[in-house]
């Protein structure tokens, strides 16, 4: 399968990428690792006229500490993040989750920025960044703006990003020593999660329990009020709206959310 014809452009800087996106508007798409976009284009589910390749922007492929924040360049690949010592110390949940995305080859190519912007409700890192109270830094023709993760995921594959905006950084508060847990249930090794749970401290978010990643607010509230881990986990599916699919009913998903949350909370506490 070969994508429909398009014009390939390579950006040498963030400003140039933004200018190229501005010039072609809706017709253009950013190309990062290409591991969501190219499969869609090969299936002709997407047919952008122009691709703006940002992979040469090495400056966006770093993790650094800045005051109380860890700043992750949007082009950092899953494999980079999994092995990054700064992330391992200050945001160990993210370092772990990055090693659980897809397979070895996918992790060598896919980027955290691409995963977040793609906004698949089944994505692992979106839920993990949400649990970490992260923020997404975006560059556009009007300059930079910061969008909290809680406001970034609007629906399946939908974000507030404008066509001429580029996600450049993800910022999460440094939380060295905080307990974390991550669980995802899938049928086969390379499948996306049917349901997943990311926990850091007492923040809990869920994968695939709604059209976006969501916080398990009832569980979090119960924890804050001193409930046991088991009692708090039993509330994990409250307020969620999981989809019904042939291999996973909504009730099955709710059950998984409760069981996996209990495991992730225990891991985080242990």
């Amino acid at each position, binding site marked *: *399968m*070969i*994508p*429909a*014809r*398009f*014009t*390939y452009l*390579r950006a040498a800087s963030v400003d140039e990428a933004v200018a190229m996106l501005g010039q072609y508007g809706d017709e253009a798409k950013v*190309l990062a690792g*290409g*591991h969501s976009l*190219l*499969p869609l284009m*090969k*299936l002709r589910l997407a047919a952008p006229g122009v*691709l703006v*390749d940002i*992979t040469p922007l090495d400056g966006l492929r770093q993790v650094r500490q800045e005051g109380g924040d860890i700043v992750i360049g949007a082009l950092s690949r899953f*494999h980079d993040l999994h092995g990054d010592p700064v992330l391992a110390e200050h945001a160990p949940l993210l370092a772990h989750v990055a090693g659980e995305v*897809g*397979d*070895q*080859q*996918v992790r*060598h*190519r896919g980027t955290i920025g691409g995963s977040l912007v793609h906004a698949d409700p089944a994505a692992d890192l979106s839920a993990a960044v949400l649990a970490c109270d992260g923020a997404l830094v975006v560059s556009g023709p009007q300059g930079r703006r910061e969008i909290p993760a809680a406001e970034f995921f609007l629906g399946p594959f939908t974000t507030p990003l404008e066509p001429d905006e580029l996600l450049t950084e993800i910022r999460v508060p440094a939380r060295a020593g905080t307990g974390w847990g991550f669980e995802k249930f899938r049928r086969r*090794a*390379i499948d996306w999660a049917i349901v997943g749970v990311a926990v850091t401290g007492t923040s809990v978010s869920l994968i695939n329990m709604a059209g976006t990643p969501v916080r398990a607010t009832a569980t979090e509230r119960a924890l804050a009020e001193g409930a046991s881990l088991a009692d708090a986990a039993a509330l994990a599916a409250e307020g969620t709206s999981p989809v019904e699919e042939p291999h996973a009913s909504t009730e099955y998903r709710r059950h998984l959310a409760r069981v996996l949350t209990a495991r992730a909370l225990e891991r985080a506490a242990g």
Partner: protein
Amino acid sequence: MKVTIEVNGSEVSDEVEDRTLLVHFIRDNAGLTATNVGCDTTSCGACTVLLDGESVKSCTILAAQADGHAVTTLEGLSGEGELHPVQRAFRDQHGLQCGFCTPGMIMASVSLLAHNPKPTREEVRHGLEGNLCRCTGYHNIVNAVVDASGQEVGR
């Protein structure tokens, strides 16, 4: 557009359509056909090559994205008449049946061993999750990677 890729140490330069996939550049422009196209949907790993030393699925990368970079295919692993240790281990351990998945399995194994020179059987299985063997010879494939790492092959 004009694309120049260092393939197995030699520069290959060609004028290609912007939408050309790396796997097609390798097979059609560089004329190297060990790299197979299996699923064509990023699932099976048959098209795995090393891009700047890291295993990637070449059916899901544009040739344009590899422009100016270095690619290693199965053909680039072995020296003159000498098999690469991973190739030799696949032969010794019967790590292949029809052989269709084998080039991708070997390239993924080389990348896995580069990061983890002494993997456990479990780590080999995790590292090769992106490669499917239609003949389902996984057990001997794991044996081959353990053997290539210089460890005793447990059963």
